[in-house]
C-alpha cells in the first residue's frame, strides 16, 4: 500500500509522562453558545439565574448543533458577545462559581438499548470531536450508510499535544469500553486504533488492553504529519480511499477521536455531560508544561497562570497545535470543548514570502497529492475554473505546503482564501440568476 505524503515534524511531546492534574474550579467561567461546527445554541437561562454543574444552559438549534452545559455551579451574571478567534461573534454566558460544584439533580446515566438511544445520548451529552475539529459526534453515529469498521484516531500528530496520549495512559479501559459500546449498538464488526509510533508507552498500554479482544486491533502508524487527518488515518488503517465529496461513512468507516470515545463511555456510566476536558499546556513561555483537566469556559489566562507562564515574555499564543491551531490576539478568552492544547511561545518569526521557484516541495508534502503552487497561482489570478480543476476542495488545510515552502509562501492561507473566494463567487452567480 502506498503511503500518503506528509512531513516529519519535531514532536516536542514534553508532557507525555506528566499525570493529568485537576484544574481547580475557576472563580468564573465564560461559556460560548457555540463550541461545535453547526448552528449556535439558544441560551436557556437569564442573568441572575442559579445553575448547577451539568445543567443544560444552551438549547441546540438545528440538526448539527449540540446542547451546552454549565461546567460550574453558580450564578449567571452576564451574557456577552464573545469574539472567537475566527472573527465571528458568539453570545456567551458568564457564570460566577459558588465553589460548591453542586451537580444538576436531573443528571442520570442514559439507558441505551439501540443505535437511536446511543445517538440521542451522544447528543444530550454535548459531545463533539475532542481532537480539535468540534464536529458533533451524534451526526457521525447517526450515519445512515452501513458501517463495518470503527477507526479510533489516537494519532495525535501535532507537535506538543499529548492530551489523547494521557487519556490512553490514564484511562485506557474507558476507551476500550467506549469502543465496545459503539460497536455493539452500531453493529460494527471490527475496530482499528490508529496511533503514531512515537508513543511507545501508549501503544503498549492499548495493546495490553486489547490482548483478548479479537475485534479490536492497534495499528501503529509512522509519525508522519498529518497522520491524524481523517482521510489519512482511514486510508492508513483500513486501506480505504474516501472519494471526492464523500464522507468516511460512505466507505463504511466511522472515525472517532480516542478521547471522544472514552468520554462517550463515561457519559453512559455517570450521566455527566461534557463539562470538562483534558488540555495540554506547553510552549517555551510556560514554566511548567502539563496536562490539565479543565472546566469548559475557563479563561485561557487562568490556565496559563496555573502552568506558570511568563506574561511579559509571551509573544504568541495558540489554541491547538502549531500546524493547524489558531493564534490568539489575547489570553482573555474561554477554553472550549474542541480545544486540546494551549501553547505559549516567547519567539515569533517574521515570515517574508519570496517568489515561488517551482521546486515542487509543497506537492511532495501534500497528503492529498494536490499541487498547492498551482492552486495558489490560480487563486491569485482569481481563476475559479483552475481552482476546481486542481481540486481545491480536497485540501484539508493541514499546513504541510506552507511548512515546507522554501520561499515561505503562505500556501495554506491561500487555499483557505481560495475556498472562500469560490463560495463567494458561487453566491454571486446564484444571485445574478
Amino acid at each position, binding site marked *: 500500500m502506498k503511503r500518503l505524503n506528509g512531513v516529519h515534524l519535531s514532536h516536542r511531546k514534553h508532557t507525555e509522562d506528566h499525570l493529568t492534574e485537576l484544574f481547580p474550579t475557576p472563580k468564573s467561567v465564560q461559556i460560548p453558545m457555540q463550541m461545535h461546527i453547526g448552528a449556535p445554541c439558544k441560551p436557556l437561562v437569564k442573568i441572575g439565574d442559579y445553575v448547577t454543574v451539568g445543567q443544560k444552559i444552551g438549547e441546540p438549534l438545528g440538526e448539527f448543533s449540540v446542547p451546552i452545559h454549565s461546567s460550574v455551579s453558580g450564578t449567571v451574571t452576564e451574557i456577552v458577545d464573545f469574539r472567537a478567534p475566527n472573527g465571528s461573534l458568539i453570545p456567551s454566558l458568564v457564570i460566577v462559581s459558588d465553589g460548591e460544584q453542586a451537580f444538576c439533580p436531573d443528571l442520570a446515566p442514559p439507558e441505551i438499548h439501540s443505535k437511536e438511544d446511543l445517538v440521542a445520548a451522544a447528543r444530550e451529552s454535548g459531545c463533539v470531536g475532542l481532537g480539535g475539529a468540534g464536529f458533533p459526534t451524534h451526526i457521525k453515529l447517526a450515519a445512515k450508510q452501513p458501517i463495518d469498521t470503527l477507526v479510533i484516531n489516537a494519532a495525535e500528530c501535532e507537535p506538543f499535544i499529548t492530551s489523547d496520549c494521557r487519556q490512553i495512559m490514564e484511562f485506557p479501559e474507558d476507551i476500550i469500553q467506549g469502543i465496545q459500546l459503539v460497536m455493539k449498538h452500531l453493529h460494527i464488526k471490527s475496530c482499528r486504533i490508529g496511533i503514531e509510533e512515537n508513543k511507545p508507552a501508549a501503544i503498549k498500554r492499548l495493546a495490553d488492553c486489547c490482548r483478548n479482544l479479537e475485534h479490536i486491533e492497534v495499528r501503529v502508524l509512522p509519525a508522519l504529519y498529518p497522520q491524524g487527518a481523517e482521510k489519512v488515518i482511514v486510508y492508513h488503517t483500513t486501506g480505504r480511499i474516501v472519494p471526492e*465529496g464523500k464522507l468516511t461513512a460512505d466507505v463504511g468507516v466511522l472515525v472517532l477521536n480516542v478521547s471522544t470515545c472514552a468520554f462517550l463511555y463515561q457519559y453512559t456510566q455517570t450521566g455527566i455531560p461534557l463539562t470538562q476536558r483534558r488540555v495540554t499546556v506547553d510552549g517555551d513561555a510556560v514554566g511548567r508544561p502539563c496536562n490539565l483537566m479543565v472546566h469548559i469556559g475557563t479563561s485561557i489566562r487562568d490556565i496559563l497562570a496555573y502552568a506558570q507562564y511568563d506574561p511579559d515574555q509571551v509573544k504568541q499564543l495558540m489554541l491547538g497545535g502549531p500546524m493547524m491551531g489558531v493564534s490568539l490576539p489575547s489570553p482573555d478568552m474561554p477554553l472550549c470543548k474542541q480545544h486540546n492544547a494551549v501553547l505559549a511561545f516567547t519567539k515569533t518569526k517574521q515570515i517574508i514570502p519570496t*517568489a515561488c521557484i517551482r521546486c515542487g516541495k509543497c506537492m511532495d508534502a501534500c497528503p492529498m497529492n494536490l499541487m498547492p503552487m498551482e492552486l495558489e497561482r490560480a487563486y491569485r489570478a482569481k481563476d475559479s475554473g483552475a481552482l476546481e480543476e486542481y481540486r481545491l476542495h*480536497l485540501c484539508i488545510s493541514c499546513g504541510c505546503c506552507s*511548512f515546507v515552502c522554501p520561499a515561505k509562501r503562505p500556501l495554506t492561507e491561500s487555499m483557505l482564501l481560495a475556498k472562500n473566494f469560490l463560495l463567494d463567487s458561487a453566491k454571486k452567480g446564484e444571485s445574478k440568476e
Partner: protein
Amino acid sequence: MKQLHISPAPHERRPMTTMQIMLRVFIALLPAAVVGCLTFGIRAAVVIAVCILSSMFFEFLCRILMKRPQTITDLSAAVTGLLLGMNLPVDIPFWQAVVGSFVAIVVTKQLFGGLGQNFANPAIVARIVLLVSFQESMTTWRMPHSDAIASATPLVSNEASYLDLLLGNTAGCIGETCAIALILGGVYLLVRGIISPAAPIGFIGTFAICTFLAGNDPLYQVLSGGLLLGAIFMATDYVTTPITKSGKLLFGIGCGALTFCIRQFGGYPEGVSFSILLMNLLVPYLDRMTKTKPFGAMPHRKEAKSHE
C-alpha cells in the same frame, strides 16, 4: 503582555530557504568549476568571477530600476553567473562574458518578472546568444594545462580517452570537461534532496540509447561536451523544468532525444543548450499533461460538485 503576534496556520516553517537551496546548487557546481580552473589556468577563474559578479550586479541594478524588493541575497543570480561562466571557453573576451550575464539576468530573467517567472534557463539563453553572436570566440578552445589552442573538442575530434574525459583532461568549456566532478556535484544535490533524478536519468538514458542505436559509442558521447553539465545542473533547474516526477522524466527524455538529433544530424557539434531551451518552451504543456491525481479524486468533476 505586549501585543501578541497573530499568524495564519501553520505557525511553524521548515528552516530551508530559497537562498539555502541556491547555495547548495552553488556548492555542487564548485568541484567542476575548480577542476576547470586547474585545467585551464587562472584566466578560467577570472572568467567565472566576471560572470558571477556581473550577474549579481545586473540583478541588483534591475531590482532597483524596477522598484522591486532586492533579491540579490537569494543567490540565484550567483548560481546563474557560475553556470554561465562554466559554459564559456577560457579565452572568451571579458566584455563578451558580461554581455552573457546581461542576456541571462536582464533579458531572460528580470524582464520576465525575476526568479520563478523566467520561461527559459538564463544561463542557457546567454550561452546560445553568445554562441550565435560571437561564434569565433565561443568555439576557440585551449588545450588543457597549456596555452596552445586546441583544434577541436573531443566531441569533434573523437580522440580523447575515457580517463581524460572523466578527469577533465580535454578541451572544452571551463566547467563541462570533468565528468567525475560533475557527477559528484549531482550526487550531492540528490543526497541533499535538492534535485530529483528523473530529468538527468531521462536525459542521459535516452541520449545513450539513441547514440548506441545509431552505432556510436554512448559512453564517449555522454562524457564529452556539455551533456553532463546540462543534464545534471540545467535540466534540473526548478523554474524552467516541469514540477512533477513524470513531467521531469518526459522533459529529460525530450532533451536526450533532441540532443542526439542535433549532435547526429545537425550543423552544431553540441546540442545540449538548444535541446534544453526547446524543452523549456514545452514545460507549461508538460506540467498540464502530468498533473498529479489527487487522493480520492473522481474522474467526473460534475458529480463531485453536485455533492457539495
